[in-house]
């Protein structure tokens, strides 16, 4: 026992020197773009309700906004847009156009922003869909993620379009857009709509029942966005088969996939490299209870190399899986180079001859020319099914991570032993050898004395 423990101690001491595997580096790519974020506040008539500890919802929202404006960190471009703030009439067509940007997206001028907030009076309709569209326009397109924080107390009164569909459509347009929603009531319809909007864009839904809760939550969202807004994947469009698939370097990509669609990608890889790929598919709409995802690595000739799969049921945000693959033994590798060389189909017969027992499988590489890197095809498929009215367009968002690292060779059997059995066997072997040697010596001494 003591030996075991000390052995572990020695080992741990030695291992302490080895560099620990780290966490992913934050924000690998430097960007000069500020965080761009827009608060969208509902100023419709219902905000007059005095149901938040005796205060009106509007007063609470104004107080929270003032706190947020005070706390905005440097390097944040914050804008404020309101909806239902100006048109007091009953004409739905006019009321549903009622949305204005009161603070433009940019470095915050605190006094101007506070004055604009203080002037707000609860007035008209609730055109959430339109406000989201306009907010996305205000934020513009660019490299980094955009965030909208939607604060409302009432459901959209201007559908169609359904704001949830609008959110899904906006999220599918190039620039990464996340909508976080804050509900100021516990009303069922409001909550369902806000949960739907948040889910469609990968955002969050929170209820706020006081100014403190509201301000804390908005500040938390700003902080989170500050940490992570630069981590945006590259947009790519997978094809329906391998030959036309886009070639991917190491990095993070995003794509859209419909129900039961297959999306193909290609990754060039050297024989001494290991391919690592992972994929997540986000559930941005209601789907049937059980679902699955499959990521396969396929040789250009159609042979499956390895697969990663996961399935689940019930409530979740993403379903993900991953795989590793490296060209292992030599014969596998030359198989790959044959195909990548694009040599004629006659090497089918060569292949069978090799399998039949021709010893040298390395003939194609013997020419001394480094073969061009083989490619591995990746195919992402899913087994989601639409629940209810949710259509399959635009497809569900996919996040694909591709990495190429040095391959890890298969270890040979270790030449050393381990365990108590080893010690017992060696001790017994030593003992037996000693006894035999002793007997031999005695026999030899006797013979020598007699002669």
């Amino acid at each position, binding site marked *: 026992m003591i030996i075991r423990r000390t052995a572990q101690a020695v080992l741990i001491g030695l291992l302490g020197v080895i560099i*620990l595997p780290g966490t992913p580096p934050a924000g690998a790519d430097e960007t000069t773009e500020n965080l761009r974020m827009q608060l969208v506040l509902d100023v419709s008539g219902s905000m007059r309700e005095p149901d938040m500890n005796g205060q009106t919802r509007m007063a609470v929202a104004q107080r929270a906004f003032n706190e947020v404006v005070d706390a905005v960190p440097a390097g944040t471009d914050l804008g404020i847009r309101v909806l239902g703030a100006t048109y007091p009439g009953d004409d739905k067509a006019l009321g549903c156009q009622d949305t204005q940007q009161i603070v433009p997206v940019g470095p915050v001028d605190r006094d101007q922003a506070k004055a604009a907030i203080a002037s707000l009076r609860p007035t008209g309709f609730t055109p959430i869909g339109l406000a989201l569209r306009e907010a996305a326009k205000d934020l513009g397109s660019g490299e980094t993620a955009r965030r909208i924080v939607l604060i409302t107390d009432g459901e959209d009164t201007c559908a169609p379009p359904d704001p949830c569909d609008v959110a899904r459509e906006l999220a599918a347009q190039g620039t990464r857009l996340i909508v976080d929603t804050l509900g100021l009531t516990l009303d069922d319809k409001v909550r369902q709509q806000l949960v739907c909007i948040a889910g469609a864009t990968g955002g*969050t839904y929170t*209820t706020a029942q006081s100014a403190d809760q509201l301000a804390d939550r908005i500040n938390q969202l700003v902080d989170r966005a500050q940490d992570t807004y630069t981590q945006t994947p590259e947009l790519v469009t997978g094809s329906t088969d391998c030959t036309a698939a886009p070639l991917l370097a190491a990095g*993070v990509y995003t794509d859209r996939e419909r129900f039961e669609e297959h999306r193909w990608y290609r990754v060039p890889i050297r024989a001494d490299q290991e391919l690592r790929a992972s994929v997540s598919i986000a559930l941005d709409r209601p789907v049937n209870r059980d679902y699955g995802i499959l990521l396969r690595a396929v040789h250009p000739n159609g042979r499956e190399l390895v697969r990663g799969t996961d399935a689940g049921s019930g409530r979740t945000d993403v379903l993900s899986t991953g795989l590793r693959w490296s060209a292992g033994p030599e014969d596998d590798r030359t198989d790959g180079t044959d195909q990548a060389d694009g040599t004629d189909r006659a090497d089918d017969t060569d292949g069978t001859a090799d399998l039949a027992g021709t010893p040298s499988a390395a003939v194609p590489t013997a020419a001394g020319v480094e073969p061009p890197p083989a*490619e591995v095809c990746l195919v992402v498929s899913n087994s989601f099914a639409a629940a209810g009215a949710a259509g399959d367009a635009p497809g569900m968002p996919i996040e694909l991570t591709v990495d190429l690292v040095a*391959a890890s060779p298969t270890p040979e059997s*270790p030449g050393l032993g381990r365990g108590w059995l080893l010690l017992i066997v060696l001790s017994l072997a030593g003992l037996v050898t000693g006894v035999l040697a002793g*007997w031999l010596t005695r026999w030899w001494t006797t013979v020598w004395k007699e002669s």
Partner: protein
Amino acid sequence: MTRRTFRLTRTGLAVGAAGAAVLLVATPAAADGPTPAPAEATLTKAGTSFLTAAAVHIDQPVRVSAATGEYLYWSFPAQAGQTSSIAATVTLADPATRSGASTWTIDVFDGLRRRQPCTAGMQAPVGSATDRQVQAGCVLRQVRAWAEPWSADPLPGTYYVRLSVTDLPEQDLGLPVQVELRVSADVSGDTSPEGGRLEAPLTPTVRQGAVLTSAADGTDTADGTDTADAAGQVSEESWWDGVVGWFSGWLPGLTSRWIWTVAGGVLAAVGGVVGFGLTRRPRPRTGPAAAG
């Protein structure tokens, strides 16, 4: 020299050898247990996706306020031989505002976003409508130093924890909760029982991808630094590096197997000496110090 003293010397030698062996293994016993992390400030952040997961150190306390229904992500590093355990406490909203039971789930994924099973712990506890707190936990498998690409064995690198509510009455979404989480680790046993090691830990890339136009520039840009390094090494390699390289390729790394095997050799030698001694004719025990 008399026979007796000769024998005594022999025994002494054997004992000395055994003692040396014990000393050999016992000296560095000062390094005990995994290196304790310094007391760290509480982390008050959580990510909302794999890409934005908040990095947490081993034994670093985490305390965040969140909304029911949010998906909270953290990532932590694991090394070979490490058995990680995750403990989370969710302080639920006031029971008066809630309408029913909720199921909270800890999901753990490796650096390739592959689901990792829990060997122990309440992975998906249910908080009843009146509960104030829910405790969740998960103990992972021991991380291995190497595994075949086709296997799903846990490997060194980054691990992701996702805490979320997976079943609840719809009207309870969005209510505030407090989440406390701690990842602890136990490094014990042989860190690479079957030898072999992973050349690069399963640490996912977070940089933006790039669609390539031709395969040739793909592998160059993909890890241009690697190839450059390798080329540099080859050109500057001396004969001594070659020898060292050959030996390090042929000899297994510093594992506990070395200690076991050397100890086995010592024991075998002692066994040999003892066995040899057994075949000597026992001295007659009639007189004191009869041997002359």
